[in-house]
C-alpha cells in the first residue's frame, strides 16, 4: 500500500518529534532539570512510528526503559511527558514515575518498564483482555534484543501462541543490550528465528526503514485482529547515543565506524528522501515541520517548568485503589 502525503508527513513529523524530544531530554538532564536516568531512543524512531501508525487509540502497547519514542508514537502528550521527566505534579505519573515509568492509559500506552522483559507477559495479559472483549483490539509489545534472553520472552511467546492472543511482539534489535553486543546474549543473532518453534510467523525487517516496518506491522496486526494469533517482528536498528545517562554522558565504547555506518542509514533522512523522491516534501515543508516540532518542545519545556513539584504530603497518595 502506498501511503499518501498526509500519512507520510504525519509519520515524518512524529519521527522528528521523537528525536528532538530525546535530544532535548539529554540536554535537560545535563542541565540538571531532569533527574535519574535517561535512555535515549534516538536512531530507532522508525520502529515506534512504523508500528504505531498501524494502531488505533484502542490498541495497546507495552514499552521498556527506552520508552519515550513509544509514548510519543502512541499519541501521548509531550507536555505531560516532559513534566514527568521534570518530576512535576502535572507529569503523567504526578512526578512519581520519571522516565522509566511513563504511562498514558488514555491512549493505550500501558507503561514503560524499568525491568528488562517485564512488559512481555503484561502485554499478553492486555492481549488476552482484548481477545475476551472481542472488539478487535491488538496489543503491541516493544522489547529489546537483550530482553529476548530472559525467560519471560520465551514464556510469553509460548503462551501467546498457545492461546492465539492478538499480540505483536516487536523486538528492537539495536545490536546492543546495554553495553554488550548482541552476540554476548545470543548464540545466533536472529531474534525472529525464535518465532518458528512457538508456531508463529517471525519476520526480520529493516528497522530504519519506517515504510518497511509499517508494512510488516500491517501483516502482523491483520493476523492478530483476525484472531489468528501472535507474530514476532524483529526490527534491526541502532541507537545513536549511549545506553543510558545520569549526570554526564558516558564514554562511547562502540566502534566509531559502526556508529557512522548506522548513522548513514538515518531513518529520518531515509523517509525524507523517499518523500522528496515522490515530490511529496519540499524544503520549505520540511523546515516548517522542524520549526513546529521545535516550538512544541519549547512549549512542553515551559509547561514542565511551570508545573509545581509534588506536595510531599502526597507521598502516600495512590498507594491503593479506592
Amino acid at each position, binding site marked *: 500500500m502506498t501511503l499518501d502525503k498526509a500519512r507520510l508527513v504525519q509519520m515524518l513529523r512524529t519521527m522528528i518529534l521523537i528525536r528532538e524530544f530525546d535530544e532535548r531530554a539529554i540536554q535537560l538532564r545535563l542541565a540538571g532539570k531532569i533527574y535519574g536516568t535517561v535512555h535515549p531512543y534516538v536512531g530507532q524512531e522508525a520502529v515506534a512510528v512504523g508500528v504505531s501508525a498501524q494502531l488505533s487509540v484502542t490498541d495497546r502497547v507495552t514499552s521498556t526503559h527506552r520508552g519515550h519514542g513509544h509514548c510519543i508514537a502512541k499519541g501521548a502528550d509531550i507536555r505531560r511527558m516532559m513534566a514527568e521527566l521534570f518530576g512535576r505534579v502535572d507529569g503523567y505519573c504526578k512526578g512519581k514515575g520519571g522516565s*522509566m*515509568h511513563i504511562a498514558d492509559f488514555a491512549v493505550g500506552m500501558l507503561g514503560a518498564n524499568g525491568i528488562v522483559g517485564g512488559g512481555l507477559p503484561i502485554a499478553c495479559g492486555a492481549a488476552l483482555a482484548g481477545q475476551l472483549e472481542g472488539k478487535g483490539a491488538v496489543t503491541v509489545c516493544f522489547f529489546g534484543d537483550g530482553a529476548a534472553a530472559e525467560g519471560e520472552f520465551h514464556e510469553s511467546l509460548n503462551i501467546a501462541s498457545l492461546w492465539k492472543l492478538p499480540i505483536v511482539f516487536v523486538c528492537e534489535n539495536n545490536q546492543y543490550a546495554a553495553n554488550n553486543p548482541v552476540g554476548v546474549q545470543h548464540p545466533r543473532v536472529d531474534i525472529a528465528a525464535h518465532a518458528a518453534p512457538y508456531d508463529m510467523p517471525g519476520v526480520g525487517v529493516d528497522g530504519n526503514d519506517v515504510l518497511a516496518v509499517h508494512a510488516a506491522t500491517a501483516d502482523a496486526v491483520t493476523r492478530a485482529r483476525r484472531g489468528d494469533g501472535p507474530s514476532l517482528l524483529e526490527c534491526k536498528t541502532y541507537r545513536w547515543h549511549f545506553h543510558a545517562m545520569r549526570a554526564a554522558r558516558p564514554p562511547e565504547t562502540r566502534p566509531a565506524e559502526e556508529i557512522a555506518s548506522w548513522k548513514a542509514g538515518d531513518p529520518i533522512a531515509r523517509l525524507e528522501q523517499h518523500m522528496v523522491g515522490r515530490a511529496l516534501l519540499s524544503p520549505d515543508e520540511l523546515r516548517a515541520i522542524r520549526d513546529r516540532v521545535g516550538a512544541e518542545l519549547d512549549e512542553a519545556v515551559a509547561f514542565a517548568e511551570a508545573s509545581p513539584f509534588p506536595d510531599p504530603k502526597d*507521598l502516600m497518595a495512590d498507594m491503593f485503589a479506592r
Partner: protein
Amino acid sequence: MAVMTYREALNLALREELTRDPNVFVIGEEVGLYEGAYKVTQGLLKEFGPKRIVDTPIAESGFTGVGIGAAMVGLRPVVEMMTFNFALLALDQIVNSAAKLHYMSGGQYNVPLVIRGPGGPAHQLAAQHSQSMEVYFYHVPGLKVVRPSTPMDAKGLLKAAIRDDNPVIFIESETLYNVKGEVPEDPDFVIPLGQAVVRREGTDVTVVAYMGMMYRAMEAAEELAKDGISVEIVDPRSLQPLDTATIIGSVRKTHRAVVVEAGAGFAGMGSEIATEITEEAFDDLDAPVLRVTGAQAPMPYARNLERAKTPTKEKIADAIRRVCYANGSR
C-alpha cells in the same frame, strides 16, 4: 593500610580471592567486557580470562541457577547482580534452591555461592531501581545476608563471604562506591560474618544503622553532641547472622535504642532488632525502642518525594531526641 574507594576494595577482594582459589569465578551481566556496570570488576577479565570472568545474557534466574549448580559440584561462584533489584527475577532459585539445598539434601550439598551487587536507594531512579532488597532475603532460613558500609568492611566481608560454604547475599550500595577509607592490604584480612562493629562510642543512646543510614546517623550524632547527647552507633554489617550480643551490650550501657533502616518499616530490620532488645534487655531500657524507617510506599521519582520517603538526618536526630526525652536542647 591503603586508602581506597569502596569500589576498589571490592575489586581487590575479588582479585585476591580469584588468585587464591582457582574454584572462584565471577559471573553476571557485563562483568567482563564492560568491566561491570559500576566497574567493580574492572581489569578482571584481562587478568583472569573469560573462563573465570563470565559475561552472561540478561537472564537473572538462569545465571543464578548456573551459579547454584556450579557451587553444588565444587566451584565457588560470585554472581553479580547488575543491581539487586533484578535479583527478584532469580528469587525462586535463591530461595527454593540456594537457601535450602544443604538442608534438604541432608547436608550432602554445600552451596558456596556469593550473590553481590548494589542495592538500596539510589538517586531518583524511582520505584523499580531504588529498593532495600535485604528484607527479601534475611527472612529466608539458609541465607546469610551482608550489608557492608565501609571500604574496609567491603573487602573483609566479601572475602569472608567467598570463603563461606553457604550462600551469601552481599548487597552493596551505588551511593557508597566512591566512598574512600583505609583498607588493609593483607590478603588474609577477613572480617567474619556475624560481627557487628561500634562505629562511634556514646553513653546516652544506641543507634543501630547500616549503609547510607549509618552515615546519616553519624551526622545526626555529631549534631546532637553539641546538645550534650552522646550517641553510640552500632553497624550490624551482617544482618543474617545478626550479632545481637554487640547490640544488646550497647543497649545495656546506654539504656535507649533507635534503629534506622532505609526500606519500608513493616516487618523490617527495625522490628527484628527492637524485638531482640525487648526480649533480651527489657529491664535495661529507659524508653521504648524507636524505629526510623522509609515510608510504606515505593520509592517515588521526584526529589522532594524521595526525601519524604527516606529517613533523613533530621528524622534520625528527632527520634534520638525523643528516646532521650530531650526536646530541642537539654
